[in-house]
């Protein structure tokens, strides 16, 4: 059974179409990554799944036939713009959110999660006394108590230090192991690649990518060379068959033209510099993102228009 089924959904705000004829299926028990530039429609899509916004057209179904308005108790939603009642104690706040969603007491779950995210000692402190990272962990707990069937996390890692981020990542994976479906949006392409089973990219309200990271990369083929050579960026200038160069500092990433032969590129490079490493690979998610929504793509779009 699919956790979420979005069929031809459109949502406009005045003259702006935030989501345009979107169809998407999120399998149950998967981690689905939503990526896209700011303002592309990720949050609007999430808000429609949570039933905060209603689609102008199209339909959203949760867990088979369930409509979002009947399924909010099954959903845990962590919005991008987070806020907590500052004057409440951590314990009272988490019990409030748990009771709000489930209609029952959640003391045991609160204690377990506070322990797990290293906040047990702060249970009786007011939220206003917590650091930003701690507040975000409290907000995460508020989202997962009681355990939802579908978890929507809008940029859950933004502003977190590496230790807290790792704790949240581990909790997400654990929830998935317990059958929870997770949809998360992120601007961290490396995180999306490593954490998500599926990637969905939305750009100007329209779906531009959808699938496993492997299937998305397959669509582009092995058209990327990662190279380390003496001379660095200067050494890879003027190589035949190279469309674009991305300078990563110690490493350069080259994108091959459609009919280019990687062997030709290697020969030309060896002729002018000492090559330490040379690997042919599929493009990274970051690279794919930039090809779709980066400045070069923008220029191409303008030229075509």
């Amino acid at each position, binding site marked *: 059974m699919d956790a979420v089924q979005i069929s031809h959904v459109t949502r406009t705000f005045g003259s702006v179409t935030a989501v345009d004829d979107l169809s998407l299926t999120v399998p149950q028990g998967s981690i689905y990554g939503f990526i896209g530039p700011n303002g592309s429609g990720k949050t609007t899509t999430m808000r429609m799944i949570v039933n*905060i916004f209603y689609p102008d057209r199209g339909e959203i179904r949760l867990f088979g036939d369930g409509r979002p308005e009947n399924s909010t108790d099954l959903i845990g939603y962590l919005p991008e713009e987070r806020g907590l009642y500052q004057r409440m104690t951590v314990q009272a706040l988490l019990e409030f959110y748990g*009771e709000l969603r489930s209609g029952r007491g959640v003391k045991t779950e609160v204690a377990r999660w506070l322990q797990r995210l290293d906040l047990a000692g702060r249970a009786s402190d007011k939220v206003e006394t917590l650091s930003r990272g701690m507040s975000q962990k409290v907000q995460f707990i508020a989202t997962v108590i009681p355990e939802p069937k579908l978890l929507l996390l809008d940029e859950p890692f933004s502003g977190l230090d590496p230790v807290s981020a790792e704790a949240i990542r581990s909790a997400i994976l654990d929830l998935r192991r317990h059958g929870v479906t997770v949809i998360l949006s992120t601007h961290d392409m490396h995180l999306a690649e490593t954490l998500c089973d599926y990637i969905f990219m939305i750009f100007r309200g329209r779906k531009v990518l959808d699938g496993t990271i492997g299937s998305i990369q397959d669509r582009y083929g092995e058209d990327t060379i990662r190279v380390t050579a003496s001379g660095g960026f200067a050494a890879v200038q003027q190589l035949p068959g190279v469309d674009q160069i991305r300078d990563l500092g110690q490493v350069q990433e080259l994108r091959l033209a459609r009919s280019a032969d990687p062997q030709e590129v290697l020969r030309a490079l060896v002729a002018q510099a000492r090559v330490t490493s040379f690997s042919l690979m599929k493009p990274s998610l970051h690279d794919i993102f930039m090809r779709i929504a980066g400045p070069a793509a923008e220029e191409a779009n303008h030229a075509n228009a």
Partner: protein
Amino acid sequence: MRMHKIRTIAKRDYIATVRTKAFVFGLVVAPMLFGGGSIAMTLFKGQPDLKDRRVAIVDHTGVVAGALVSAAREKNGRELFDKKTHQQIAPRYVFEVIAPAANSKDQLLALSGRVRRKQLVAFLEIGKDALRPPGPADDPTARVSYYTNAGGIDEMRNWLNGPINDGVRLARLAQLGIDIDRNKGLTASVPIDGLSLVERDEKTGEVHEARKRSELEGFFVPFAVAMILAMIVMVGSAPMLQNVTQDKSQRIVETLLGAATPFELMTGKVVGAVGVSVTSSVLYVLAGTLAVNALGIAGLLPLTIIPWFYVYLLADVVMLCAFAAALGACCSTPQDAQNLAIVLLMPCLIPMFMLVTVLRQPHGTLATVMSLVPPFTPILMLLRQAMPDGVPAWQPWVGLVDVLAFAAATVWAASRIFRVAILMQGKPPRLAEMVRWAMKG
């Protein structure tokens, strides 16, 4: 609609509000502000302004001024000192009789100068025609002129009315040859006793005599009941605007909307506010009951209006809180909310401005119509119901149906505005936009 969500939101908001210092402070301070006037009057009653009240009299009749001077002497002798403590408790009325001058204008100007220099509080000019009984074509107001620049309630002028007219009447009688000294009581006033109606006891059949009616019964009790209702409604509903704006500006709302629908969220908040109002009303009603018992005026309270008091209270709080929630949803900052606070209080302030008008003519067209206009019904209808002669039986019921229908419509429209506006940021919407959201959702 899921009741547990409404209950959870209401419980949190209720606890968060009643635990604040602002609530406890408001509970104590609001009655002090409303009753501040009477408290101050009680406090300063024993400390009146004891400066002499000096008034000059230019008497063109030559006989009325003497009567005034005698009346003032009698008043001073009667009221100037406390009988037990012998301390002065009232200002002395001093009259200075001045002979009319040839140039009347110059004399009036000079006396006006003395009033301006605070040497006099006023001066009187008694016209020479004052003794002549007025004919149908005469202008009676021109007979006696009272010049002053005193503000507020002029006690001197109120007092003068009696002695001047007594003096004039006595002088007229003297002109007719009646011996005034032997007929001193001729102009004495007859006191009027205010009494309630005569009643028959339904059980015993006995006819009870009418009892003396107090001014409190006709004025103070209805006024106080209406003010207490207005106060509780304002204390209960005013924080809602800030509360919603705060939830919105602190980004709490979206998290809540992930677990409850906008309607559930708004209803929960409204129920929480109703709880706050009921709490404060129970405290005020208890305190009020103890106070009227202590003052010995418990019998003046029309107990039959207490159920109406609570029905109107609940309807008014629901109506105003829903309205406040919709307004709060349209605000992005506490500053926006502050600007709109006055709009929210209008349904309470307008009837409060009308209290005296309605008390004067409780069955007039204005009072009847305004008390049937839903936002004003709770305060104005209750005020009229609390008066000794009450209102026609149909009016409170029609008012109640109006109020309940209007409250339901307000909640419905407010929830639609709330749903659209609650996640919007930036400039507050225009009124036309809010109306469009209310109509179309």
